[in-house]
């Protein structure tokens, strides 16, 4: 399933004194089964953009095509079908919990979409394991859980829909570093092994660069660029100009180049590749 935006504008409360243009002239394509990160500073339109992906908001002008569904213009039934195929996890999803037990919470979505509940229940342990929760939480009230656990339950309640596309708004905000790494690994796994399209919204360039194969940079409701992580590093000055910090690893490389005069050819983004290159150099130096 491919997602195509064509000249999309979105305006909040049009024709009123509170009118606010959130998105302007967006045109881009998210290829099927890709891992795309949407980055931009606060207020750049990330959240508005993400709600277009499952029809919660529909473009004021222009079109969004998601698989066979075209927005605006879809009727209630295809819209619901679209929401089943595009799972969306909002920022702070723990605020949406309401059921008496975690199990009921997880079955809420499948019930609404009319999935086979027997099948879904058999799948519960796997989903819980995926998000790093113990099976014993199933019968507990979600409100007795810790903040991090609640977040995982909320995430699981969308994952259980097994949708083709997974849209995540700052899914790791407020989690400890281990939990954060674990979840990012899960998203990578879902993308690489299960062939799901993942759209990750974040302002953490580290996470975006390390995981995504396509980066969509938003600034003031407009597309700044659509590139691969590698290409974006070459334009890092531009990033800082729009309020995004390049990853620490890149800053480190820059520092090495400037102060130590080390000529650094690798334009790799992640901590792993930079440290590997560093090790290679140190070893080479030691052998001299």
């Amino acid at each position, binding site marked *: 399933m491919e997602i195509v935006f064509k000249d999309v504008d979105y305006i909040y409360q049009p024709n*009123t*004194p509170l009118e606010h243009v959130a998105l302007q002239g967006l045109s881009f394509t998210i290829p099927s089964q890709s891992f795309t990160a949407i980055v931009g500073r606060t207020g750049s339109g990330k959240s508005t953009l993400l709600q277009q992906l499952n029809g*919660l908001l529909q473009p004021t002008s222009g079109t969004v095509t998601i698989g066979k569904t075209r927005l605006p213009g879809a009727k209630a039934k295809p819209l619901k079908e679209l929401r*089943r195929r595009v799972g969306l996890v909002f920022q702070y999803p723990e*605020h*949406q919990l309401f059921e008496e037990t975690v199990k009921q919470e997880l079955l809420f979505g499948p019930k*609404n979409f009319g999935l086979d509940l027997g099948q879904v229940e058999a799948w519960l342990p796997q989903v819980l394991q995926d998000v790093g929760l113990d099976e014993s939480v199933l019968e507990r009230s979600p409100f007795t859980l810790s903040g991090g656990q609640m977040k995982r339950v909320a995430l699981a*309640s969308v994952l259980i829909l097994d949708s083709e596309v997974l849209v995540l708004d700052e899914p790791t905000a407020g989690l400890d570093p281990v939990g954060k790494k674990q979840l990012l690994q899960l998203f990578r796994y879902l993308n690489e092994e299960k062939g799901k399209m993942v759209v990750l919204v974040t302002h953490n360039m580290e996470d975006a660069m390390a995981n995504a194969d396509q980066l969509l940079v938003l600034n003031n409701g407009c597309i700044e660029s659509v590139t691969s992580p590698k290409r974006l590093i070459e334009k890092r000055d531009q990033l800082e100009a729009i309020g995004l910090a390049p990853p620490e690893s890149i800053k480190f490389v820059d520092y090495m180049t400037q102060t130590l005069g080390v000529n650094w050819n690798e334009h790799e983004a992640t901590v792993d590749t930079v440290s590997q290159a560093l090790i290679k150099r140190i070893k080479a130096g030691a052998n001299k």
Partner: protein
Amino acid sequence: MKQSFILGQYIPRESFIHRLDPRTKIISLILFVITMFVIDRLLIYSLLYGFVLGCVLLSTIPITYLIKGLKPVWWLVAFTFIFHVLFQRDGEALFDVFGFFIYDQGFIQGGEIASRLLLMIVMATLLTLTTPPLAVTDGMRWFLTPLTRLGMPVNELAIMMAISLRLIPTMTEEMDKISKAQAARGLDYTQGRLRDRFKALLPLLIPLFISAFKRAEALAMAMEARGYQGADHRTSYRQLVFRTMDYIVVCLMTTVTISIYLMIG
């Protein structure tokens, strides 16, 4: 967010009405309402309509915005009017519909009461549209201050009011977020049988209440952490200033109200 009901919203502008002191606006509103209940002639009603229209124009708030935003009110006004036309039993019978008489007084009284309702709501909306919520609270506090002598906790009431007003947009936003999050999980409360629709409200209301309680708790903590101990003897950063224009408006409004009262009485 869809354009919601505008009652209680504030639209910052730089108009004459925006610049008036909140107390001036509150007094004017009260005087206006008194006038409206005193008069009983259609001619003066048309003057009131003109006055309201003038105020709206002065406030530079687009009339279309006001009309759209008060949609639920139109229904109420129309209902009031029709109810009076149908069930008023005074005056001359104008015509009958299958043995059911419609009287001229029905039109007159229906028109009067619907007009009162309409004009009152438009003026009250105009007050909140042109005055920041906190300024409204400050104004109310000023009017209630004499009651502190009678032991009324005016300052506490004012801060309660300020907090509630402040929380309305926050809660609306929260509701919007929650309903979207549940819609993403397939919740649909616009379709199905009435019973199902009511049931579908639970996933919205429970998270909303929980977040409201959490917010209240956090706010109480934050206030205590900053040493809040009741509101007695507090000074205010925003001082209300009565300008020449305010005196003129209040005098004008009072004079007009009294003269209308004398003319009719």
